[in-house]
């Protein structure tokens, strides 16, 4: 085996230009493989960061309880018409008991108890409908990175303060420090000072959202205790499907994974990943075809030598190993050079930190280059590619081969 590898190495070093060209070709294929991995993987991360990045990964919402129906004993049929319970939001009580429990779970990086509802923002004669989100001070940026989106003022929510989107302030000609009147769907009003203006970059939140402190929201929505929902952020959003049922089992609350609400996004990402697999498979196929054709040529060129080796007592297996080793060495060298080149080029890109909303990043992630996989697959591919030429070499009739 060692001797066969020595012969293989000698054959490769004897034709330096040809070997260099072959290794270069393989390295190009590996480079494409790695770049595609970094691009497809990075793109998925980028999309996730820019879409699901500001989403809650698990949401616990109180289940609305329908009014009890008292049916007459002799009635066979009952027609029931029920208006949406816009005035009476379902409440999650005893949050102080289970929030620490949820936060202690592995993978949970933060929770945000909230009171959400709708209302109107009034400034002079101008009135705009808004969604009012009551957040716990100090937890403003647990879910959406509000602090990162702030363009004026601060994200810290104090009593009597409100954060508004940039578009909304432009529409209503509002400025930082001004006072606005907020009226909830319960008809309760509060005068709030604009302490921060944010810009998330999407129309809805920038035009229709108003963030207030949890204490302000309690007043506006007549909710002295409890919250309407708890949003949970995870270190890895892909663990949400596994963690949501666990939270439900632990707390008895209806915990829902983000994937239930963003199934289409998930499907799109999976389709994108599959496209990546196809592209990478083509890169690998190119490597295999290149190595196989080069080794077939080498086999043809070295037919007399194969005949001599067989005449001197080298078995078919030995000849096989010589040619398969050449394939493996070409694959390994090409893999290493390609991986090094890929890593070097990817170093120039800003990386995953730039995927966060508000950053000017490119969707290429150096950490997803799949370098080890590229080297292993290329070496295995090159070995597979060399089997056909190696078999052809091993089957050569020594008498015919020597005569050529």
């Amino acid at each position, binding site marked *: 085996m*060692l001797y066969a590898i*020595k012969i293989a190495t000698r054959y490769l070093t004897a034709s330096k230009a040809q070997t260099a060209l072959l290794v270069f070709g393989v390295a190009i294929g590996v480079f494409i493989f790695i770049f595609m991995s970094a691009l497809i993987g990075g793109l998925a991360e980028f999309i996730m960061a820019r879409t699901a990045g500001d989403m809650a990964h698990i949401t616990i919402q109180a289940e609305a309880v329908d009014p009890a129906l008292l049916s007459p004993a002799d009635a066979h049929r009952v027609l029931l018409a029920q208006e949406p319970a816009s005035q009476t939001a379902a409440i999650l009580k005893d949050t102080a008991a289970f929030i620490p429990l949820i936060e202690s779970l592995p993978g949970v990086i933060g929770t945000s108890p909230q009171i959400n509802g709708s209302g109107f923002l009034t400034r002079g004669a101008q009135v705009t409908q808004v969604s009012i989100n009551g957040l716990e001070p100090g937890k403003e940026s647990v879910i959406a990175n509000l602090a990162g989106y702030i363009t004026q003022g601060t994200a810290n929510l104090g009593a009597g303060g409100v954060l508004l989107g940039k578009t909304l302030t432009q529409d209503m000609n509002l400025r930082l420090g001004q006072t606005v009147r907020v009226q909830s769907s319960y008809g309760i009003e509060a005068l709030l000072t604009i302490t921060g203006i944010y810009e998330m970059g999407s129309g809805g939140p920038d035009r229709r959202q108003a963030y207030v402190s949890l204490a302000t929201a309690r007043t506006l929505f007549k909710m002295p205790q409890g919250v309407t929902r708890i949003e949970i952020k995870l270190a890895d959003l892909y663990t949400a499907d596994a963690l949501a049922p666990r939270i439900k089992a632990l707390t008895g609350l209806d915990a829902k994974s983000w994937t239930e609400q963003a199934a289409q996004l998930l499907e799109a990402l999976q389709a994108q990943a599959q496209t990546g697999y196809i592209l990478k498979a083509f890169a690998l196929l190119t490597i295999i075809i290149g190595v196989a054709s080069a080794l077939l040529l080498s086999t043809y060129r070295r037919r007399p030598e194969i005949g001599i080796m067989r005449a001197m007592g080298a078995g078919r297996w030995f000849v096989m190993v010589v040619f398969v080793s050449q394939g493996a060495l070409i694959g390994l060298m090409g893999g290493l050079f390609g991986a090094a080149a890929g890593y070097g080029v990817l170093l120039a890109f800003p990386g995953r930190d730039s995927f966060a909303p508000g950053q000017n990043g490119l969707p290429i992630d150096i950490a997803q280059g799949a370098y080890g996989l590229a080297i292993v697959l290329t070496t295995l591919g090159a070995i597979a590619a060399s089997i056909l030429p190696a078999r052809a070499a091993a089957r050569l009739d020594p*008498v015919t081969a020597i005569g050529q």
Partner: protein
Amino acid sequence: MTALLQVQDLVKTFGSGDAETRVLRGVHLAMQTGELAALLGPSGSGKSTLLTILGTLMHPTSGQHSMLGVDLTTASDRALTEFRNQHIGFVFQFHNLLPDFTALENVVFPTAVREGRETAAARTRGQELLVRMGLAERIHFPTANLSGGQKQRVAVARALMNRPELVLADEPTGNLDRASAAQVMDLIAEINRDEGTTFLISTHDEKIAALCQRQIVVGEGLVTG
């Protein structure tokens, strides 16, 4: 002297039907250890085919072929390869060395391929053989840098590497000038005399044949003398 090899009623045909060519038509031949024999005959007489079958590089169509008491007629490719490696050496007309290897690497090849690596013992033996062939200064030379005569002497050294009982030489001097041819033949005769290695040399050259103890003549697919 003891019996080394024996072939009986050896037949070899190529092709089939109307294209069938019968190259050997029932050859009978026996050789003893330590013989230095010349294989003579015109082109197309079947010399090379006989040499190839004796070298276990080809199966006969029919007949019997045995060497050192081993029946080689129907042995498997693997068994023939191992037998060839241990008991038979080859010297070809065009030396047929591995071009990307040095003289020493070529010589030790038959041992290295059997043992899976180049051992120190094999390298020592290879160096001794090259010194004996008068190539002490060329041991580590790439074979591409050697003259025709030097290459053929490397080929002789390689044939002797595994101490084979039989060396088959197909026109070993056919491609050499007179001085180089004489040098190679002197070496063959010396090894035959000193080590008792059997040589069967295929040649057209009557002078080479005259240097051998025995002349085996092949004509029209039969041993005629």
